[in-house]
């Protein structure tokens, strides 16, 4: 006979879980009691939202399913933002919540909330387990659903009595069988042939690659495909790292804060090969003018993404790694597209990303990121918060490997970065982990300094401190006549806050202090805070105003 809690822990071990992030409470006491002498490593966060983000960061950095645990009611509700963040970016997370006993369900019991109902729109699937003997099967299904097909979060709600009751150990099914869930992995032969025809005929092809390439672990295939046929690649925010930043065919990020040359290339291309992307509005701008001269091939594992926002000519549903392998095998003729490559090279030369570094001696955030780059050379996990800090990092940090860039793309969750960085550290203890933050975002989960201090988690927090909610301020400057309505934040001494938690830090106020401070952070064995007092009204450019065509950029220059 085994208790539900015991069955749960054993099931998690069977799935290969080594680390989980959580916060105890009344309904999960039986689970925590079982954790007390289990080999699983549990990281105690300071707020359940951080547990969800940490599990998500762990999943993104490792490619495995991340796990978080919270109690019923408020604990479960606090996970919701984290679950929604993972859902929007298709990240495999299993969230386990306690629940009031089955006998009290629906009675408005203490710390009861209908977390299954609440998370239905933001999970790939969720469970309310009512029979103890179902636990092993449900856990197995949850990990399978979270980690296959288009990945995503799955929640398991476990009432207290289900965890305490003892049952005869149920037989665990070897294979998960769900008649309503059969993802397509292999691309359709006829569609692949059509794609090959279009690629062979194209004169100005462009690859538009996104997070799906990373989820599918298809970076080698993507780079191989692009290199063999001389096809330039632009990536979404989520796709950064799937091709090395300094690869000659890489155009960097496209869209609202994309490079000028990437957006020009989209506008001019005659074939757009969209891979693991969803034509998000931050990428496309006005959808009618997005890739107006191009035929479109769209490869994605989720059939619902195909044709959702943009009409496509050749839809291919399948796992990107498998589809690209088939496409590469079928492409005979090498199409170097020399004239097109020359044109792009010209744009790259004449329209680089730029900021006011030579005009003044101000501390520009872009300079800090360039210095980070010089120090880390792409061999680090870089996590960001949301806003200007995120866009500058995406633009200026040179990513060389997949899964080394971790950011909340779809939901745009401020406060994501620091806890996600904590999770990423447990996935990649071999690499330095940086959280590039703003002074706004960091204050949304600053309590996690407690977690970082308790376990001596060597996450380096680089705060680009402009005493504003910078991205909102930028929009107010550009579109609301500089009426800075509630976006100014009074100065905070972050180093002092860090010290209170037992964490070291440095305040940096001039350019020549940047590199020594970064070195000090990396050399320090433990968490570290860098409070960079940056130029307050620095903007992220280029910028496509909401609803404009992506070649109409503020801070850009007309294509030459």
């Amino acid at each position, binding site marked *: 006979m085994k208790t539900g809690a015991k069955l749960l822990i054993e099931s998690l071990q069977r799935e290969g879980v080594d680390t989980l992030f959580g916060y105890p409470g009344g309904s999960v006491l039986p689970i925590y009691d079982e954790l007390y002498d289990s080999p699983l490593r549990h990281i105690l966060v300071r707020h359940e939202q951080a547990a969800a983000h940490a599990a998500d960061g762990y999943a993104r950095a490792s490619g495995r399913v991340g796990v978080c645990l919270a109690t019923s009611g408020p604990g479960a509700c606090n996970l919701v933002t984290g679950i929604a963040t993972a859902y929007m970016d298709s990240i495999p997370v299993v969230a386990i919540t306690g629940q009031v006993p089955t006998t009290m369900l629906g009675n408005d019991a203490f710390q009861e909330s209908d977390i299954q109902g609440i998370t239905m729109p933001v999970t790939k699937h969720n469970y309310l387990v009512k029979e103890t003997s179902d636990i092993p099967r449900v856990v197995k299904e949850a990990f399978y659903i979270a980690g296959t097909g288009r990945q995503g979060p799955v929640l398991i709600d476990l009432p207290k009595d289900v965890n305490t009751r003892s049952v005869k150990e149920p037989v665990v099914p070897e294979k998960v069988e*769900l008649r*309503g869930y059969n993802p397509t992995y292999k691309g359709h032969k006829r569609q692949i042939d059509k794609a090959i025809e279009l690629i062979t005929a194209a004169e100005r092809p462009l690859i538009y690659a996104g997070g799906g390439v990373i989820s599918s672990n298809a970076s080698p295939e993507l780079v191989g495909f692009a290199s063999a046929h001389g096809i330039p690649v632009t990536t979404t925010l989520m796709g950064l790292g799937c091709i090395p930043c300094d690869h000659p065919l890489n155009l960097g990020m496209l869209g609202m804060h994309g490079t000028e040359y990437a957006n020009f290339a989209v506008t001019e291309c005659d074939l757009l090969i969209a891979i693991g992307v969803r034509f998000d509005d931050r990428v496309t701008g006005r959808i009618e003018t997005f890739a107006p001269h191009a035929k479109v091939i769209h490869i994605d594992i*989720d059939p*619902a993404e195909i044709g959702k926002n943009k009409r496509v000519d050749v839809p291919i549903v399948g796992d990107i790694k498998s589809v690209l392998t088939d496409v590469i095998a079928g492409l005979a003729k090498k199409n170097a597209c020399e004239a097109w490559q020359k044109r792009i090279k010209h744009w790259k030369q004449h329209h680089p990303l730029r900021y006011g570094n030579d005009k003044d001696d101000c501390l520009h955030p872009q300079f800090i990121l360039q210095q980070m780059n010089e120090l880390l050379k792409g061999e680090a996990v870089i996590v960001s918060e949301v806003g200007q800090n995120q866009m500058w990092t995406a633009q200026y940090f040179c990513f060389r490997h997949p899964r080394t860039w971790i950011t909340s793309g779809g939901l745009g969750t401020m406060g994501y970065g620091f806890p996600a960085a904590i999770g990423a550290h447990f996935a990649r203890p071999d690499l330095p982990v940086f959280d590039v933050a703003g002074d706004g975002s960091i204050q949304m989960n600053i309590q996690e300094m407690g977690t970082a201090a308790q376990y001596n988690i060597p996450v380096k927090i680089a705060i680009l401190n402009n005493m504003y909610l910078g991205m909102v301020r930028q929009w107010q400057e550009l579109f609301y006549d500089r009426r800075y309505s509630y976006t100014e934040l009074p100065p905070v001494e972050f180093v002092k806050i860090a010290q209170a938690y037992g964490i070291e830090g440095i305040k940096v106020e001039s350019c020549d202090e940047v590199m020594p401070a970064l070195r000090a952070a990396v050399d320090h064995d433990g968490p570290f805070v860098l409070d960079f007092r940056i130029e307050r009204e620095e903007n992220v450019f280029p910028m496509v105003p909401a609803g404009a065509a992506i070649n109409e950029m503020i801070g850009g220059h007309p294509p030459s």
Partner: protein
Amino acid sequence: MKAHTLSILVENKAGVLSRVTGLFSRRGFNIESLAVGTCEEPDMSRITIVVIGDDAQVEQVMKQLNKLIDVIKVSDLTDSERVERELALFKVTADQGTTRAEIMQIATIFRAQIVDVGAKSVILQITGDTDKIDAMEKLLRQFGIKELIRTGRIGILRGTKTVTSSK
């Protein structure tokens, strides 16, 4: 924009209807009519939903429905030969004498049944497609409809074709 009849085969589990209807409201689709019941397989249910939208919208809603783990199969019956039915119950004011005879006459024409007779009212039961029930309602208005209740529409393909679980 036209009405599409979707036949959705789902797991017979708690919360499935909520997943399906939640998806419609979340993605901004209006449900015109909804009917749920058990089916030939004891562990499955069949949901018939009538939704109004253009082809691209309906295709998107079907793809989203297919992503639900508890949804086994989704079919659009709209462009196929099919039988569709609704059932309605009317409680109509009916005095002794003339009105009652007139109501019974209408019932006969529509092949409706009188399932309850009270001192001041009768209950009529009618099955048919939407238009037939609408027509009946129009005619009964003159007598005073005290209460009207309609089921959602259900639909089934003609011939040997089926909407079953071989996904």
